[in-house]
């Protein structure tokens, strides 16, 4: 990534005088937008690297106290920080608990893959589920759920659907235990224990084919 130069800020603003045979250390923080902190699925995944690598350059303008000869000083340093990837949500199965035209109760199995080498916690997530391009149900899950690093976990969500304004064919297909094209979208609140970032919102919009059983 190539980021624009920014003036360093600290408790003692520039300019300042540096006495003979002394040195001064200045703290700085170069702000990074969230897109550089969390790898979004639709963005550049950046391969399998576990760290973002940075090459930093500092430049200071220095002149003699009598006002002569401005000199630009430069220093370089390499840096790295851990990549944080969004979890991946996939519906693996849809199970019919009660098949009726007015109220059909489903149990949707949601798999959450954590591609990170460290655990992530889902504080809550809000979702919308579409089947065969039609809205089926929405909801909010508030139970905390931890997914350990580089593992996946499954979560079952109970749904109540009403097929009264949908094609009979869809209900028949589901009752006949066939697969269904789904779209699962929403937002999850993800917590990580990184110190500098506590939590972030992960939007997901997954489509696929889920078995109905």
């Amino acid at each position: 990534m190539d980021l624009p130069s920014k003036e360093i800020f600290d408790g003692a603003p520039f300019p300042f005088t540096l006495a003979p045979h002394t040195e001064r250390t200045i703290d700085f923080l170069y702000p990074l937008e969230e897109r550089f902190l969390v790898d979004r699925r639709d963005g550049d995944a950046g391969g399998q690297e576990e760290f973002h690598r940075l090459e930093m350059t500092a430049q200071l303008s220095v002149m003699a106290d009598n006002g002569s000869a401005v000199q630009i000083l430069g220093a370089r340093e390499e840096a790295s920080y851990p990549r944080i990837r969004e979890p991946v949500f996939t519906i693996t199965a849809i199970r019919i608990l009660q098949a009726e035209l007015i109220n059909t109760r489903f149990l949707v199995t949601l798999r959450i893959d954590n591609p990170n080498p460290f655990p992530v916690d889902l504080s809550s997530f809000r979702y919308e589920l579409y089947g065969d391009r039609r809205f089926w149900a929405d909801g909010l899950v508030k139970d905390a759920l931890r997914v350990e690093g580089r593992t996946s976990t499954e979560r079952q969500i109970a749904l109540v659907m009403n097929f009264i304004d949908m094609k009979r064919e869809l209900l028949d297909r589901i009752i006949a235990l066939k697969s269904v094209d789904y779209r699962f979208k929403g937002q999850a609140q993800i917590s990580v224990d990184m110190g500098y970032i506590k939590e972030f919102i992960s939007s997901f919009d997954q489509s696929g084919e889920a078995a109905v059983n």
Partner: protein
Amino acid sequence: MKPWKPALAQGVGLFFCISLFYSCATSKPPTPPAPVTVSSRETPLLRLHYVGLGRLDRAVGVQGTVTVENPLPEALRVQKGEI
């Protein structure tokens, strides 16, 4: 005056002249103090140190330090800095 005296006087005079000339030719005039030349190795040094990712107020970003060192016998003015 004896006839050999002028020749002796001339010889002694020539000797002093030669000695003076030799002395002037080989002695060095007092040298004024040379101006102090600042070589590139003596200019201020700059070091950049990466600490990690940090938080300041609401901003999250790359945190580190920049150290500027003045090895010169005169004060320096640091105008501005950029990362």
